[in-house]
Each structure stands twice: as C-alpha cells, then as structure tokens.
C-alpha cells in the first residue's frame, strides 16, 4: 500500500503529496440538495484529506449567470487565495467577450470553464471563438465538460476543436464520463497533444486512470473531483489506490495541473 492509501487506512490527512483538485465548484445547485456546499466546509473537507488547492467555477456561474457567478468565484478566491484558483466561466449566451475582458487579466483566475451541456450550445460552436483565441494566445487552460453521446460535448467535438486549435490546452472534464467515453477520450488525447484528461465522474475507476497514464503519460492526466457537486473523496480514492508509480500518482494528483496553471 502506498503512503497515501496508508493515510486513508490510518484515517489521517495525507501530507506526502501536494494535491490540487483541477475540477471543482462552489455553492448550492437547484437540481439536488448538497449539504454544506459553501467554501468553508469545502476547505474543511480538503483539510480532512490533505488536498492543498482546488481550481473551481461557482455553481452560480455555470448554472445561471456567468457574470454574477464569476464575481462570486473571484470573491471566494480573494478570501482564500492559497486554497482556491478560479475558472472564468464562459456561457456562450451571456457575452463571452465581456467575461473574458473583465477577468482575463485577473490573477485570481487560472483557466476558463465551458459547460456545453448545461448551456445547450455545442463545443465546436462559433460563440466559443474568443475562448480558443485567448487560449492559443496565452496558454490559459480551458476545462470543458465532456459526455459521450451528448449533442453538445461528445468526443468527436472535442477532437474537432483540439484539431482546429492545436495551441490550446484543453482539459477534457470527466474524460467522456462513460466507459465508452473514457475509451474515446484516451483516443482523442493520443491524437491531440493539447488535450489533457481530467478524471472525475461517476463511472471512472483506478484501472481506467492507470490506463490513461500508460497511454498518454502522467503529464496529460489530472485529478479532479467535481466537488461539491460530487463528494471529493470519490474520485480521489480511485487515484490513491490506482496501480501507478509514486511519481505518476504525484503528477496526476497535482504536479500536472500545477504546471498548466503557470501560464501567466
């Protein structure tokens, strides 16, 4: 058992590795009840496990109002800059240029978040053009929701966007979610060097994460949890017990995303 898995079994916070959660949110979400969805309890859970930092977009930003939600994200980061970095949420129906213009130079934000399924707008649609332009110009990473079979963010759309924008760093959120989606996400990542596989989602496993690392390398795979949408420990456990070397696990848990955030 590796040091991190041993910490789980000893019920103590792990200190061996700097863990950075590349896919988080904050705040309530109307579709279902989330106990304690706010940043304070999120930090408490991070401390319980030994997670140093989380990169997040507020639920308000992805669900309802990008402008108000990005402001909420910025405020949360301002309160705890050592624990949080924000994603600028771009809703294609809510003035993408304005959001990128307002927050693009703000150091509280380290990336851009797209959620084509929630916004019912395809990942390869023209309203996202300013996002790809900024991403290619600056190196700012873009985390997009993906889901196999979706009309808005299926794997072929990810492939198309990555081919069209080879200079963009695109984090494939959930790596397609389903067993089929995970297979397809790996294949896209093998073809497109700019695609990074992010591993949270209800159907992923340690075996799949180990397969991702074998196929594309630990420098192309990042841990995310989706918390507080989903509990942070579900995805984290898969990585902790996966068949990875210590160096691979450290890269997936934090090393890779930390490097990607150093684009400014």
């Amino acid at each position, binding site marked *: 058992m590796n040091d991190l*898995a041993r910490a*789980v079994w000893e*019920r103590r916070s792990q200190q061996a590795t700097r863990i950075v959660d590349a896919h988080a949110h904050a705040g309530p979400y109307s579709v*279902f009840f989330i*106990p304690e969805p706010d940043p304070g309890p999120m930090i408490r859970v991070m401390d319980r*496990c030994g997670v140093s930092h989380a990169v997040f977009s507020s639920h308000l930003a992805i669900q309802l109002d990008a402008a108000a939600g990005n402001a909420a994200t910025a405020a949360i980061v301002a309160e705890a800059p050592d624990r949080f970095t924000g994603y600028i949420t771009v809703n294609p129906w809510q003035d993408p240029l304005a959001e990128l213009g307002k927050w693009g130079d703000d150091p509280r934000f380290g990336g851009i978040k797209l959620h084509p399924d929630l916004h019912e707008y395809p990942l390869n649609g023209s309203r996202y053009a300013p996002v790809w332009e900024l991403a290619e110009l600056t190196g700012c990473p873009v985390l997009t929701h993906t889901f196999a079979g979706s009309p808005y963010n299926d794997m072929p759309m990810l492939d198309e966007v990555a081919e069209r924008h080879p200079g963009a760093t695109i984090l494939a959120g959930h790596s397609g979610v389903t067993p089929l989606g995970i297979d397809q996400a790996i294949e896209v990542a093998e073809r497109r060097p700019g695609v990074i596989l992010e591993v949270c989602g209800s159907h*992923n496993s340690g075996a799949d994460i180990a397969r991702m690392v074998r196929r594309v390398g630990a420098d192309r795979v990042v841990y995310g949890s989706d918390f507080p949408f989903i*509990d942070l420990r579900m995805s984290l456990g*898969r990585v902790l017990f996966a068949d990875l070397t210590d160096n691979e696990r450290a890269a997936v848990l934090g090393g890779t995303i930390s490097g990607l955030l150093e684009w400014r």
Partner: protein
Amino acid sequence: MAEARPILIDADAMLGRHPRRDVGGGTVDELLAALDRVGIAEAVVGNMTAWLHDPHRGNAQLLDLVKDQPRLHPCWVMLPDSCGELGADFAEEAVAKGVRAVRAFPRDHGYHLAGADAAVVLHALARVRLPLLVDAPQVDWPTMETIARAHPALRIVVGAAGYRMLRQIAGAMERNVNVHLGTADLSSHCGLEWLVARFGAGRIVFGTGQPYRDPAEAVTRLLWSELGDADVATIGRGIV
C-alpha cells in the same frame, strides 16, 4: 486517529463479467485481489449470471463459486414466484444454503416490486430475516416506501443512490426505519456525514458496487469521512 483498523465487509459486490464494461474476468481470485488491494476483509457477493442472464442458474453457480471461500458470502437474486422459476421455498432454501442477503432487480427482470407476486417473496424474506438489497435505479422511491411499509420487518438496503437523491432519500428514511442506504456510489458532498447525523450510522451499510465500481471510492469515502471511529466501524460491518 484510529487505534485499530475497522473491519470492512462489502455488502455490495459481484462475481462475473459485465457486458457493458471491461471489469476483467470476474473470477473469485480477481475479487479477492480487489479486496486486498483496498483492504476489505470480506464481501457479500452476487453473481452477474443471476442478474444479467438466468437467476436460477446464477444462484446455483454462486454457491459453487464461494463454497471454499471463507471471505465471500453468497447473495441470491429473487424473482416473484408467479412462473415458478425459483421455487416457493426460495427464502427458506436460501437460509439453508448459507445465503446472507437477497437482491432484487425489478426493472431489469420485468416485475413490480410492490406487486402482489413479489409480496409473497418479500414476506418470506422478512420472516427468515434476510436483508433485501435493491439499487436505486431499479425502483422509484414511492415504491421503495410502499414495500417498506408493507413489510416492516424486512431490512431494505438501497444502493447506488448517487448524488442527486437526498431530497427523496431523507423523507423515505425518516418515515421508514427499515430503509437503509448502501455506500456504493453514495456520493453527495458531505452526504454521508449528513445522513449519519440525521439517522445514525446503523442506517448506513458499507458496500462498494464492485467490480463495476472501483471499491477504492467507498473505502476512501468512509475512512476519510468526518465520522468517528465507532460510526465507521458500525457502517463497515455491513450486513453480515
């Protein structure tokens, strides 16, 4: 934090291959290796054959698969006896053969869990004190409550609750003390602690959902929870 490690007994495991995901061969050796990888002591196991092909044959096969495996305890799949598939003495036979729990797949097996045919079997399970395991996608919560009220001595464990169901779960658990929740994919943020605070650790049953689910999820969620060691031990004991 813990003086002695809790003993985890997985109430929600399966043997066999899965037709829609690569879970390996689904052998006894693979399951034992998976338990060892994450530190689980024992498991109550069903058989994919009984779920996804033939309950009668799968239940019989399962007894052979686990007969020399002290860490593995059999879990049969029930059917209503309307077609005489599993026999009128299903519950008594299960007990006689060392079965520890029974699973129902009403959606996948095409019957109504709250109907008159299934009621006969549920009544018998309550009489012999065998717990009933049902995954949340197999039945809606009003149906779950109907059978809980109709069979108050039946211990019902609902698995695969996901992260979107607390509004339905909370009321059902409040009204029905015989409804329990399994930890496989019990994934609401801070939901485990919230449920234990409301209903007590005795209403939560450790289970992983392996091999479809990675057992590391449930192990990490429970052991890295904010619950005290006594509650973790209670949950970890599962249904054995």
